[in-house]
């Protein structure tokens, strides 16, 4: 448990984060489960090898056997023998907007999930606890949708050119001015894809002779961007300030390996909310560190922008810090604005440099105008510039829903990870079979959840991950909580040893 009180120090609010340890018996049983599944996986591979069992997965034909193998056989072992068995809980087709409630296309499998068939029926009004829809802007009615429809008629949907050529529309410039105002920075730049915003811009910011200090649980796009930049990468423990400071001191004292020249730049890369852990970055301390050691700070607010802070301005707003303390503010429009794409904000000279040097600005086609309009409309709503208080109410509603949902789950006895203010709520399941069972049992009771297992999480930390939305009403949350409690009793996943009194 990490508890930091706000006693006039760096923090202006209490910081409560907990990662309860896996019970030892559960850990041993989890390894046993994976052991049994591995043994049967090898048995199945043996039967496929000797053609005793039909092999459904892609393989080379006999005539191709002499060529370089197309498929890494062992690398698919896990997919073939473990994931396949429970993959009906993943990639479920939906036929509505991913709002607070959604409609799922019903599908069945007659060969243990190797192939699926649609039954033609639709599962109506499934409560959606899996989608990233923090402020509830994923809706096909209302101001945003009408604004996007208007722009579609006026501009069309495709731009088919890059920002540096004729793909630079007035809508894009309007959006970028609005983002800069929303973030409180000098200038901002928008990109058509959240992942690419990281992986294409980090190589434009740092290169050889630079050092990247990256959190160990950073998103794959940050990892890819760091690797593409050919900088030296050092990883510090998740959200661990001591580990980060130690790396910073070593970097400054020893400089570059072998030559011991000082690093050209040191870039600290962190995320605002870690979507798999539900934890919030300890930004005040990291800002204090970067000032002390003269490093740069790259903050990825993919999940926290719009979802955190009294004004929805993200983790900087949540801690009441100055946006100018963060050198590169990055975020996406996917999770809170019901749209797509990403942005980078910071000083004007930095943005002008990125406009000329970023891969995305040079090669990627610009954002589609209706998508841009959706962002503009939802961002104005959050800022209150549309003359209503809808945005502010949604921000408040989300904070309320989050606190309520987390507290109730802990009272029930589940092990919940992360920060008490994070709208991403990981609930621990541990055993591989319970991942599939939880997803299925919840859908039977008309609740859609996302479950995550190894290798996306450590082998003994499989979990269900609830994403709370401002669009969830209290009735929906209570319904969901009662179903989660019922399924939790059925599967015996109320592992917490810390009983919180109601």
């Amino acid at each position, binding site marked *: 448990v990490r508890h930091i009180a706000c006693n006039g120090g760096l923090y202006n609010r209490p910081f409560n984060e907990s990662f309860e340890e896996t019970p030892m018996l559960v850990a041993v049983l989890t390894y046993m489960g994976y052991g049994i599944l591995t043994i049967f996986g090898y*048995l199945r591979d043996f039967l496929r090898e000797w053609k005793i069992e039909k092999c459904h997965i892609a393989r080379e034909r006999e005539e191709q056997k002499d060529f370089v193998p197309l498929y890494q056989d062992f690398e698919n072992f896990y997919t073939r023998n473990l994931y396949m068995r429970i993959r009906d809980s993943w990639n479920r087709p939906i036929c509505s907007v991913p709002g607070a409630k959604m409609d799922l296309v019903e599908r069945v499998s007659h060969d243990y999930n190797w192939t699926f068939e649609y039954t033609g029926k639709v599962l109506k009004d499934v409560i959606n606890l899996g989608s990233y829809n923090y402020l509830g802007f994923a809706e096909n009615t209302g101001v945003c949708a009408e604004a996007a429809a208007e722009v579609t008629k006026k501009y069309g949907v495709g731009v088919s050119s890059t920002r540096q050529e004729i793909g630079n529309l007035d809508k894009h410039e309007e959006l970028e001015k609005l983002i800069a105002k929303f973030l409180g920075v000098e200038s901002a730049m928008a990109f058509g894809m959240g992942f690419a915003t990281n992986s294409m811009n980090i190589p434009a910011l740092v290169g050889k002779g630079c050092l990247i200090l990256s959190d160990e649980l950073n998103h794959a796009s940050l990892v890819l961007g760091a690797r593409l930049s050919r900088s030296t990468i050092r990883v510090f423990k998740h959200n661990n300030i001591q580990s980060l400071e130690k790396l910073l001191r070593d970097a400054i004292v020893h400089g570059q390996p072998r030559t011991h020249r000082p690093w050209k730049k040191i870039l600290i890369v962190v995320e605002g909310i870690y979507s798999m852990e539900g934890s919030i970055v300890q930004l005040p301390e990291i800002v204090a560190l970067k000032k002390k050691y003269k490093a740069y700070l790259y903050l990825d607010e993919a999940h926290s922008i719009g979802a955190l802070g009294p004004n929805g301005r993200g983790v900087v707003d949540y801690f009441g810090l100055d946006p100018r303390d963060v050198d590169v503010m990055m975020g996406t429009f996917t999770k809170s604005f019901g749209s797509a794409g990403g942005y980078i904000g910071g000083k004007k000279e930095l943005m002008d440099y990125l406009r000329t040097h970023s891969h995305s600005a040079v090669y990627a086609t610009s954002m589609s105008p209706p998508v841009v309009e959706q962002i503009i409309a939802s961002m104005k709503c959050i800022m209150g510039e549309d003359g209503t208080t809808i945005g502010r109410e949604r921000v408040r509603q989300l904070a309320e829903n989050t606190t309520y949902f987390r507290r109730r789950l802990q009272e029930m006895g589940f092990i919940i990870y992360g920060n008490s203010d994070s709208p991403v709520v990981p609930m621990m399941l541990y055993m591989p079979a319970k991942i599939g069972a939880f997803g299925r049992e919840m859908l039977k009771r008309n609740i859609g959840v996302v479950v995550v297992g190894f290798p996306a999480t450590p082998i003994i930390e499989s979990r269900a991950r609830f994403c709370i939305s401002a669009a969830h009403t209290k009735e929906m949350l209570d319904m969901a909580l009662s179903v989660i409690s019922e399924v939790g009793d059925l599967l015996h996943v109320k592992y917490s040893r810390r009983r919180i009194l109601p």
Partner: protein
Amino acid sequence: YQYLPVTALYMLEPWERTVFNSLLISVAGMAVYTGYVFM
């Protein structure tokens, strides 16, 4: 029902569960027999 998720048999196909359970029962039977003979 608890036995299935805890041992991960929940994810196996019926014939695999039969194989596993018969193995388990035969090992348990042998253990009991050997224990008896040993005592």
